[in-house]
Each structure stands twice: as structure tokens, then as C-alpha cells.
């Protein structure tokens, strides 16, 4: 039994000597992966913008557009992990949802301007131009190109509310839709409805 043990030890030693004598073989092993381009818009600070009562209840401008405060929606944590991106804003004027044709002297649309700040240097800016009967409510604009990946709190702002011809507003519920698209520049916005 003892001799057998020795023989095994000697074999091990020989093997180690043989390895040490040869030159090591080396090479580069590529470790690769990729990261897709991703843009994400953060959750809006409020799901909808309710401007409340649009018309004055009393005073010299009773029945006409009230002085509406600017409205702000933030989309915190918005990012793209690649450069060459832009924000596109599509917005519709607020249009009374029931009537089709307002009586003479009345309007059923409230126009406004809107912009999306803190992405590229040049923000998108739209001003809706719906007519008194609510036709052609939509406007759309793309901002400049952001050259690098970016993480920011996007700010959607509404301001400059007006009524065509400053007419009186027919009673009812008014609504417009706003869509923000963030993606590679020049690809055009999604036609969200």
C-alpha cells in the first residue's frame, strides 16, 4: 500500500513540472452586451388638468372667459439614455362637448398656448386656434434636438387662454387632449388620440 501511494505522488509532481515548462497561452475574451435606446416619460403630477370654471359669473365680463391661472404638469424622472432626441407636443383647444354649432354671439372653444420645458434648448410651443364653433382645435410642434442622454423633470405648461372673438361661452363641459411624445429627433410623433 505504501509503494502505491508514492507512485501517485510522483505522477502528480511530474505533471506539475510539465505544465511549468510550457509557455502560457493567452487571448482576449470579449464580454459584450448592449443597451437599447430607451426614452421614458415620468408619471404626470396629475392625470388631467381641470381648469375649473372658464367663465366669469359676475362683473362686466359675466359669461365671458375668466382670468385663468397658468397650469403646470410635471413629469418627474423623464429620461432618454441616448442623444439626438426631441419632445413633440400635440394639444387641442378646449371645446364644448355637446353642441355642434353655438348660437350667434357665443363660442364653444377656449384656445391656449402650451409648451414643454427642460428638454432641449428650444422647447416646443403651440397655440391652438380653434374657431368659435370649435373647428380646427389641434396644434402640434416639436422642440429642438437634445444632443446627449438626459434625465430631467419635464414641465408641461399651459398659459395665454383666449376665446375666439372674446365671445360668451355656451354652458357645458369643455375638453381638449394633450399628448407628449419623447423620442429620436425627426421620427415624428405618435398620433395619439
Amino acid at each position, binding site marked *: 500500500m505504501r509503494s502505491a501511494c508514492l507512485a501517485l505522488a510522483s505522477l502528480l509532481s511530474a505533471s506539475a513540472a510539465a505544465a511549468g515548462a510550457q509557455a502560457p497561452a493567452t487571448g482576449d475574451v470579449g464580454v459584450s452586451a448592449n443597451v437599447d*435606446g430607451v426614452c421614458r416619460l415620468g408619471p404626470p403630477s396629475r*392625470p388631467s388638468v381641470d*381648469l375649473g370654471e372658464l367663465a366669469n359669473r359676475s362683473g362686466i365680463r359675466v*359669461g365671458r372667459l375668466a382670468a385663468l391661472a397658468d397650469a403646470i404638469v410635471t413629469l418627474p424622472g423623464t429620461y432618454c439614455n441616448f442623444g439626438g432626441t426631441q419632445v413633440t407636443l400635440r394639444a387641442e383647444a378646449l371645446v364644448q362637448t355637446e353642441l355642434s354649432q353655438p348660437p350667434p354671439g357665443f363660442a364653444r372653444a377656449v384656445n391656449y398656448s402650451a409648451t414643454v420645458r427642460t428638454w432641449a434648448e428650444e422647447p416646443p410651443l403651440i397655440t391652438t386656434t380653434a374657431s368659435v364653433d370649435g373647428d380646427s382645435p389641434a396644434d402640434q410642434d416639436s422642440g429642438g434636438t437634445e444632443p446627449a442622454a438626459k434625465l430631467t423633470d419635464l414641465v408641461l405648461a399651459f398659459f395665454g387662454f383666449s376665446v375666439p372673438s372674446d365671445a360668451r361661452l355656451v354652458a357645458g363641459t369643455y375638453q381638449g387632449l394633450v399628448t407628449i411624445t419623447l423620442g429620436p429627433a425627426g421620427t415624428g410623433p405618435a398620433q395619439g*388620440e
Partner: protein
Amino acid sequence: MKLVSFGPAALLAAGFGAAFAQSSTAIAGPHPVTGTVPVLCAAGTLSDDDGVFAVGILVDTSTGFLRNDLSAPPKVLQGSFCTSKSTITVEASPMVAQASTGAPPEGFSDTVNFTAMAEGWTPSPAVFTTGAAANLNAVQTRETAFTGDIVVSIGDFTTEGGQALRLVEDPLYQGAVVVTLAPAD
């Protein structure tokens, strides 16, 4: 040697992979922007500052009976509007001798009835006759929002108790006309 050549190949593949990776576009919306306009009505302003229908002397001074040619220029409520369906209501109270007290002597009356009318708002004018048992046309409904002038007039003067009664002397006979615009359900 095989291992060495394999390395660059893998790196190249990774490079192309990045270049052709699908860029994701993010869309938020459509988010609604909403507002409301309440149903509002405003009766506008009167064409005359005093707002008084001046009928003048009520009686024929030779007979003491109510004149049959009484009139007063109509009043115009300018810039009236309602932002939705509305009703217009006209109500009136008769012209009553203000200084005399108690019941008038036999053969006399201290009250003059008349008819008030508000036109221009609804297809049929709102009409109210003082002293009438019923005024079915006093309330009229307009189906749509409207802005425009309302012409308010009075006429058809009659002596309460009958044309055979004379009017008691009084420096002031006074009545009233009230026009109300209100949102309709």
C-alpha cells in the same frame, strides 16, 4: 490562436448591435384638459336710466274715467344673455293709488290694471296681465343659449272693477313690472 481571433469578432457584433438597437419612443397622453362653463343668465341694462314707465295723467279730466289712449314708450333690456336653455318670466303688479287709504268710495276705483309684455327673447312674447285670473303666457322657454335685447312694453290699461268706475284722485299711481331670465333644466 483561435481564442484570440474570437475576441474581436464578438466586439464587432456588439458594436453593430448597439447601432441597430431599437430606440424607444415614450408617449404620455392623451391627457384631458377640462373646464366647465356654468349656466348663466344676465338681464342686461335698461335703455333708460330711471327705469320708469311714465304713463302720465290716467284720466280724462273732463269725465274722470280712465283715458283710452294711454301709452308709454317701451323699455329695452340691452345685452341680456343666457349661456344655455332659459326661461323668461314677466310679472306685474297693477298701478295703485299710493296716497289714498282704505277702500275707494262707491263708484270709484284706486287701481289700474295693465298688460306687460317682454319680446325678443322667445318666439312668443312673455305676457302678464294684472288682475287676470291666470297668466298662461307669463313664462316662455328658449331652447338655446341666446344674447340679445329684450323689449318690455306695457299697454291695455283698464280700471279694476270695470270701466264704469272713476279713478280716485292721487298724485301717484304706481305699479311694477319684473322680467326674470333664468336657466332652464
